């Protein structure tokens, strides 16, 4: 009897969330589905960021560098070669390009640390943003790039694709973080010298983390382009988008992967709930986020764990 009660609530909760998630389109309006579709892609952005920061300990201010590379590669390919190339080829190309970007970003990460690396990632975003604006004939510049193909015009289908993608990415990233590789990453994030002294190849593991994070960020970015039908700097590259991803991950709880997804859905949902307040919305969301970070540094998941441990 007691052993039944002791079963961790996690698998059950996961099952309930999965069932609720899958069946939502049958009861919910297109408006809510559209909102959640965006939230799910943002969740993948935040989870990929958490793998790099929470585990590998890399202060990455530029998640949108990887996302933007994926989104724009996919978008430009489709816009140029529309009927001849299938959507999935474009999406894959976007993911590959993001991985290339991830490797480029990993090179300085192996040399410089902390704030220095943070600045490199910030600069990478600014350069990408400038490139998009300068090569406007190819990228659509500041107006944005419109893509001839979309994945689906049905809100439910788009929702299911995004939900499935988030669940699969979440499972892979979560599994990875709980695997020996995740442990080595966490160790090298906390003390690279000691991890190296224990015989682990820190550089190889970090490079791997960058590649995985870039792959999922790029894939999510590319998929989101084909959901929205457009790619623009303000939705995929701008620093404020990256800031939102970072806040989502920290808010949900670092080093949890799943927390990042919860944080992302919360942020997007909250932003929408408060939309009637106009410009006050961002202000209130930021105040809430600051409050959580100051008083519950382990985020939402940390709050839950703290409560269950205390009770």
């Amino acid at each position, binding site marked *: 009897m007691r052993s039944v009660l002791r079963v961790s609530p996690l698998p059950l909760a996961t099952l309930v969330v999965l069932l609720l998630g899958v069946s939502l389109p049958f009861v919910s309006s297109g408006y809510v589905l559209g909102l959640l579709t965006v939230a799910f892609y943002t969740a993948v952005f935040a989870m990929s960021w958490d793998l790099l920061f929470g585990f590998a300990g890399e202060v990455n201010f530029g998640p949108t560098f990887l996302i933007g590379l994926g989104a724009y590669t996919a978008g430009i390919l489709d816009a140029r070669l529309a009927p001849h190339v299938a959507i999935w080829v474009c999406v894959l190309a976007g993911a590959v390009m993001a991985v290339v970007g991830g490797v480029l970003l990993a090179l300085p990460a192996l040399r410089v640390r902390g704030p220095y690396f943070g600045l490199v990632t910030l600069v990478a975003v600014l350069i990408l943003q400038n490139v998009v604006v300068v090569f406007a004939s190819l990228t659509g510049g500041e107006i944005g790039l419109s893509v001839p193909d979309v994945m689906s015009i049905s809100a439910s289908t788009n929702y299911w694709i995004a939900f499935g993608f988030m669940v699969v990415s979440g499972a892979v990233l979560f599994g990875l973080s709980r695997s020996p590789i995740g442990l080595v990453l966490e160790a090298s994030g906390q003390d690279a010298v000691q991890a190296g002294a224990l015989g682990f190849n820190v550089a190889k593991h970090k490079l791997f983390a960058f590649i995985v994070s870039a792959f999922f960020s790029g894939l999510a970015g590319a998929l989101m382009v084909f959901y929205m039908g457009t790619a623009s700097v303000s939705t995929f590259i701008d620093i404020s988008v990256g800031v939102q991803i970072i806040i989502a991950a920290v808010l949900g709880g670092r080093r949890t992967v799943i927390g990042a997804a919860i944080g992302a859905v919360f942020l997007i949902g909250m932003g929408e709930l408060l939309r009637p307040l106009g410009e006050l919305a961002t202000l209130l969301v930021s105040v809430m986020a600051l409050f959580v970070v*100051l008083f519950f540094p382990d985020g939402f998941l940390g709050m839950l764990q703290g409560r269950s441990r205390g009770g």
Partner: protein
Amino acid sequence: MLVWQILIDGFAISALYALGATGFTLIFGVSGVLNLSHGAIMVASAVAAWAIAGSLHAGAYASALGGMAVGVVLAFATYFIAVRPIQRSRRIAEAEKEIFILTTTLLWGIILQEAVAYFFTSNAKTVLPIVEGVVRVLGVRTPSNEFFTALICWVAIGLLWLLVNKTRHGKEVLAASMNPRGVTLLGIELSRIHIAVWLVYGVLASLAGVLLGMFLGVSSYSVGPLTASAFSIVVLGGLGSVSGSLVAAYVVGYLETLTAYLISPAYRTIPALLLLVVVMYLRPQGLFGRR
């Protein structure tokens, strides 16, 4: 003609960059804090000066001073709301405090930025200039305000140098940046030094903000670029090295002005960004940084 124009414009812009970056690097040198709400404090001070001039019909000097007072208050608020609670927290691991302070100051900056946008709209605002009119120097028509800006920036930087190197309190600050533990052993309270440094920072950042507001104008959209430019100048010069920041400010300022005049204003920031990437690859500690 063009050469002189580039030299004069570049000098004024760079002086402003230098002043903004000095405060940023001072805080980092003494307490290891990278204050990502830097741009927001600059913009808020400028907007406060603008609002005081507009609603109270105050003169140029009074509104500039009022704006600076608001900036100093905001700098203290940053310290007490976003920095100190994290530094003192026992629940956050020592190794993670850096990223936590980056996150909280970033959030605090967004809060300030959105508050400015909400109460004063996000339109560009120009602060009432203290010096008006245009002068011809070396065949270039230049607003007198541009010279005034450069002059004030250099006076402020000079005063800071005197304060740090020639006064007792300044030497305490300098010592704290070299070895905080040693300073505590000498019986000097570290928290008092931190408060003094944030006060100096508030004065420098708000002065830079108000001058920027007179020179080019500010809006809530300038918050991000201002923080990014201060951050990159400071890293380019070497974190914690004030003289390095001054040199880097001039390198970046002239590079931007040259690009704007000779190539196109649209490409203004690109060469400086590329330079930064190159320096990060070849000399990660910055031009004058020591590891």
